[in-house]
């Protein structure tokens, strides 16, 4: 299950309208989301506090986990628009993560960072001298996981808060031009939520995973901001190193039934890594099955289960009310509206059931003629009306005759 509930935070108008800056041409664009919040000025009558956001979103995260769903909550938006504020918060105004932590004590916690496609454990402490990047793997029973990532159990909120602080201070937060406290790394705080239940009077437990994701800034991959990022849109990539991206886009585009199954296009926009895709889902006939041999970004890998399948996903799009961010705001909103539609369709391959239908039609005809015999008051007990039936019917007749 995939529930995309999009919260429009920091938007000027509650109905989610954005006005073009300044000029005389007035342009109104509308986007529909499940929630919208304005959190710029605490004095404003419509100000949405962290409590309120938690009340709407955090509570549903915990409720979903209690039901046994995996939950993923991630924030997307331009650097400086309040992603980290929403996810982590400040000491006087705690964000979603600490609030959710507070209510899931005795669970396993882990905290990692993805920077330049490398995974770092943020709770490793200082015991490792040279932090080697961790590897992302999949387990048949436990799903995607990071090999060697430290897991922590806490018994009270203080400890949880301490872990969170430690992790945050370990993040690589390279200053960008826009916002110095912003980050170019993705951070994932995971809670393995376990609860004891009685199933058929036997003690059992429900295990679910909550992923709280603070994505890197969404600003356009621009050499000005980050030179190792790949440009998007109509831009031309200069270096031949990016030939693979062009080819993979080509192969993807020309796939006949190109319903975007790829969650990559959604998540790796921010980190600009080589986008790969598997036409993982089987599909209706006519479409060709391809394998496009570029690896998914680490982020996509880790959130695979959150974005396709048995999981509830909440996306928070953060935007800035400033005119100067108009373009970014617009692209964030477009992206969010698009993300709403990226539901990983559990398409199953259904074989042509022509034969089945043909057989059934024959049976229906047989049954009809039987009915006809009935209505003509010809209650022939010989079952001859089923003479030409399928093998199973013939077997049946034989047996019945024997019995008779």
């Amino acid at each position: 299950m995939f529930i995309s509930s999009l919260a429009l935070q920091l938007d000027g108008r509650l109905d989610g309208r954005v006005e073009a800056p300044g000029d005389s041409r007035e342009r109104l664009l509308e986007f529909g989301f499940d929630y919208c919040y304005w959190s710029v000025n605490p004095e404003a009558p419509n100000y949405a506090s962290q409590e309120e956001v938690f009340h709407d979103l955090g509570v549903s995260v915990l409720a979903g986990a209690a039901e046994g769903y995996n939950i993923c909550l991630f924030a997307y938006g331009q650097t400086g628009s309040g992603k980290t504020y929403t996810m982590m918060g400040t000491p006087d105004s705690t964000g979603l993560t600490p609030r959710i932590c507070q209510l899931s004590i005795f669970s396993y916690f882990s905290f990692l960072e993805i920077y330049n496609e490398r995974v770092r454990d943020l709770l490793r402490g200082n015991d490792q001298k040279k932090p080697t990047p961790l590897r992302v793997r999949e387990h048949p029973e436990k799903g995607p996981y990071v090999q060697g990532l430290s897991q922590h159990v806490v018994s009270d909120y203080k400890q949880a808060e301490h872990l969170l602080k430690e992790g945050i201070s370990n993040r690589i937060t390279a200053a960008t031009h826009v916002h110095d406290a912003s980050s170019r790394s993705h951070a994932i705080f995971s809670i393995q939520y376990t609860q004891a239940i009685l199933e058929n009077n036997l003690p059992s437990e429900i295990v679910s995973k909550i992923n709280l994701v603070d994505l890197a800034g969404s600003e356009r991959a621009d050499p000005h901001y980050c030179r190792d990022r790949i440009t998007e849109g109509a831009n031309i990539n200069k270096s031949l190193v990016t030939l693979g991206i062009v080819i993979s886009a080509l192969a993807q585009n020309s796939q006949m039934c190109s319903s975007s199954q790829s969650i990559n296009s959604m998540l790796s926009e921010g980190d600009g890594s080589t986008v790969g895709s598997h036409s993982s889902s089987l599909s209706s006939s006519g479409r060709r099955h391809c394998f496009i041999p570029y690896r998914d970004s680490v982020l996509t890998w880790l959130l695979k289960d959150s974005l396709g399948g048995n999981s509830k996903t909440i996306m928070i799009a953060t935007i800035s009310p400033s005119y100067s961010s108009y373009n970014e705001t617009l692209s964030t909103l477009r992206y969010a509206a698009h993300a709403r539609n990226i539901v990983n369709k559990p398409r199953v391959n259904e074989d042509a059931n022509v034969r089945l239908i043909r057989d059934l039609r024959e049976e229906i005809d047989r049954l009809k003629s039987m009915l006809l015999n009935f209505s003509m008051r010809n209650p022939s007990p010989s079952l001859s009306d089923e003479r030409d039936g399928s093998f199973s019917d013939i077997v049946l007749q034989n047996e019945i005759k024997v019995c008779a």
Partner: protein
Amino acid sequence: MASVNSREWRAVCEKFLRSQELSEKESRKDPENDPFRSKYEARELLKEIYCFLKNVDADESEEEEEEGEEEDGQCEQSESEGGEAAGGRTHPGDSRAGLRAAKLGVVEYYLGVNHIETEELSAGEEHLMSCVKLLEKCAVTRENVSLCIQARNQLGILWAGRDETEKAQGFLETAKSIYVRYMKEDGQPPLDLVDFFVVEQEAPSQQERMRRFEMVYTHTLYYLAQVYKNLEQYEKAGQYCHSTLQRQLKFSQFVPLEWAINAAALSQYYITKTRYMEARHCLAAANVIAGLAGEVPSEAAAKESEVEYEKREQLRQKRAEIARCWIKYCRNLLEDAKKLLEDNIGELDLDRQEEMLRARRDEEEEKERGRKSAVLFDSSDTFDSICRQEEKVSSVLPLIFEEASAIFLVGQGYVAQAKEYFEMDGHVTDHIEILQDHSALFKVLAFFEERLERRCKMHKRRVDILEPICKDLNPQYYLLICRQLQFELAETFNEMMDLKLGVADKQDQPDAHTIKKLNHLCTSSIKYYQMFLDSIRSPEGKFPEKLEDDLLRPALAAKFRVARLQSKIITTNLNAQLENLNHSLDSYNFVVQYCEENPEAKKAVETELELSEEMVSLLPMKINRIKSKLASSN
């Protein structure tokens, strides 16, 4: 340069070198808060060089300058790229004026690039356009051909960045035609841009010059690929990607693994276009070039060092990925052939087969030969190895079992190879996709097999492949895959039952063993459909009142099939018969009722609904007959 004294010139050259150094190397180390420091320094140096050239040459060739001004007037009309070819070219590129223009052009070019890199796009454009204008007055020669192309490459990039893709296309197409014409008319190693500013003894070899020049053109093609991709002209984009790869190979400008993966990816593009000849060529080349990347370090070596570990990981992964591209090749080739040969109930159409075989004898070979010459990676010393790889598998749609079987075996070989790296432990989704492909290979092979028993065995292999993993997988994380596997297993058992029924129909007296076998297949199929249907239930076990769009059709179709299968269980026990038919009726009823409550579902399952409605009205009669029989037998 006779009149410029050599010391002065040497200083200019050093300045130029320094500007390159600043722009390319030192700029990378610029601090975040002053990111263009080195670029700005480089720009100043370039400006100084520009002034020097202007002054020196102005003294030297005042006459020519005047002449030049007149020409400026003439040239004005040919500003657009299209009109350029006809534009007024007067002096040859290697004349004194031509050389002067080229030198100034080089500096303009670098100034242009410098401004673009520092986000002053308009200024950058102006410099690049002055470069183009300077050269417009000259014929294309060894001296300026590279510059002509590079300036247009840059303008192409610039305009593409402004979302003016057609404009970019114009510049790049011109660049391409300049190259083509030069190679046709001259073809000698041309001067590189930096060659104008090196002292003689440091001048690069002819070979090196040619290499650089070809690289410039490879980039032109690569940019064209992207432009056409953005214009959604995928056919052309594909061609240019192919040429880019081809040229990388030809001029040995590639990293083996990277190249191989790109070629393998391109094969997948060709597959979607059903161009199997090209797809195979790409894959064969991928195999060969990936082989150049060296030996896989042993496990022991990988344990010793992180570097060896990485290398081992990379090589194994990339080769396994290429294997997966081959699997898809084999699978699609077989499936396309099946589509061509099947009749309206999915069986091999013998008349069609005969017709196709005849047609192939007549024309096929002729046609393929013609196509082959167009797109080969023909210019490298690896060509023979590539051909040998190609010979291992056909690229023509198989029409008979033997041909299909040969392709199947190749595919199966790659399945084994891919699974070596993509193990279940650690690569769950990848591993399973490979198994699903393996199953699909068996399925399509069965289509070509005439003997029912053997066909049934092939489907049995599918069950053997898929059933164990379906049990191991946790649906909490892999729900999607679980559902796919359940559905496929249900269908496979169903298929096997149909085949077994076919076999049994030929027997006179079906024995108890056959009946038991049939019932086992039937109940297994029901079981997996049921598992699929159960996966839709909520954690509390409730079936949703309203199915999500994407589940609607599969769920109702599954229910419908369950209904059918339930009535097919063979038993002599009238009570059991009664029970099975009642189950069947319930299932048909479910479909009918769901569509009554959700009329929008009707469209998705039109035929199933119609048949279910009929069954709902007819089955009670059958049930009643059994009931009365039961009553009378008591």
